[in-house]
């Protein structure tokens, strides 16, 4: 397996929406390498014919009756928002200025 480089950590951080500091990149590269080396062992026994398990329970869709029930009020929901305006979450710009 290829080692995890400083550049790869920067890429993972970008995908993970983490604005890492420069010194964190080196530190995490070293630690993630150690961890990936250790966990790569799983491929030793993961044979072709073994089915994967994603969950301990045999899950099926759980449905309920489509009935109107009480829920939180807008004020209760927005009380914890970093910023709110006119009963909406106020967020930084999502689309560019142009």
């Amino acid at each position, binding site marked *: 397996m290829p080692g995890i480089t400083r550049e790869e950590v920067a890429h993972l951080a970008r995908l993970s929406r983490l604005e890492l500091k420069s010194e964190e990149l080196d530190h995490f590269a070293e630690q993630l390498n150690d961890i990936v080396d250790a966990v790569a062992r799983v491929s030793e026994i993961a044979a072709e014919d073994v089915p994967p398990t994603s969950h301990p329970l045999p899950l099926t869709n759980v449905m309920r009756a489509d009935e109107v029930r009480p829920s939180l009020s807008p004020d209760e929901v927005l009380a914890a*928002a970093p910023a709110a305006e006119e009963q909406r979450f106020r967020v*930084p710009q999502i689309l560019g200025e142009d």
Partner: protein
Amino acid sequence: MADLIRCTAAETAAAIASGEVSAVEVAQAHLDRINAVDEKVHAFLHVDTDGALAAARSVDARRAAGEELGPLAGVPLALKDVFTTKGVPTTAGSKMLEGWRPPYDATLTRRLKEAGVVILGKTNMDEFAMGSSTENSAYGPTGNPWDLSRIPGGSGGGSAAALAAYEAPLAIGTDTGGSIRQPGAVTGTVGVKPTYGSVSRYGLIAFSSSLDQGGPCARTVLDAALLHEAIAGHDPMDSTSIDAPVPAVVAAARQADVKGMRVGVVKEFGGEGYQAGVMQRFHESVELLRSLGAEIVEISCPSFTYALPAYYLIAPSECSSNLARFDAMRYGLRVGDNGARSAEEVTALTREAGFGPEVKRRIMLGTYALSSGYYDAYYGSAQKVRTLITRDFDRAFGDVDVLISPTTPTTAFPIGERADDPMAMYLADLCTIPSNLAGNAAMSVPCGLAPEDNLPVGLQIIAPALADDRLYRVGAAVEAALNDKWGHPLLEEAPAL
């Protein structure tokens, strides 16, 4: 009722029901104890004095009105800060949620309130339950009441320490890879991971959804059983909640009899990396069970040695997805919103400021394991290992009623010793992880002190899914026999705080 803080939950509930003591007196005694010792222990992130006293007054009023009280009415409890509590701060040990007051109660919180349990406050934990020492809390570490310079385990170190420091007779934890059982083991208390799906995850802040499971922590096996019955059961709000009757765990704890049971000793757990004193107490427990009438069988589960690597791919993968919700838009921290930056930039700055190093490591590790090109080798292989581990358990439980092992390879290590060595830290969960991957039930019960450091050792008992009652039968039998041998519960040997 000389010493209210040292009573078991069962004794306390009986004394309140009979009118020997009021729920308010019991709550006040515990709040006083917290005031006296928690500066040293730091088990609590938030003490809800007003809420606790109000809940206690309500129990006293109901009793005065002639209402029949439940088996835990008026008993104080310490709640891991990963369950939402309406209007009461909930942080999951993270700066990301500092000051957040959830608008709703978790199902578990609601059930505790309905049972008349008095919630004293919220306990310290590794950030988002990621860790084995509680050192990853953004609010500072918790001390182990046996030796304050050592870790109380994690992630639920605050809950376990609160029990061992007599700040509460009951506590709630969550166990994703051992976060109830490992703190139980290193603090000399009882911790149970119920069968996956038996305690609702609604209102439990998610780390790894296919592994997370809430469960009871207590100083005695019977108290854990009483709490288990109060919190378990089907919940329509959690689609992974099992719609089946809760096993009769209280009756099993009272039965406390292992005669004729077949007990399997997991061959793979022991040897190199295991502390000598831990193995000594474990072997004595095996002989104790034999002397109590259990039949001992050695069982090999060869895939278990791959459980730790599989876990450290599956849990981070699920965490990288679950923690995407912390985007600085709807609740929690927001950093760097100066009117010029984009939403995406604000999200990245907030997550950098709000998450600690272990959470960042796991998010990136999960992102790596799930990325195209690596998915099959890492996440895909880990899911296959999960199948092999489940098959090992199925084979074993075809032959024995329960499996046993040490809960942890070592006793409590010093705070700071493994803080910046993730792989060394991860080894603390070596024996507990297989049960999370398979979704079955497991308990840690104290089995003595390691001779070399006089620190508690835990015995792990594992039962098949939905056979949680077997844990309590075996755990209570071990507890009774050891208390008999020692003349008192293990915790009485802990130094005074």
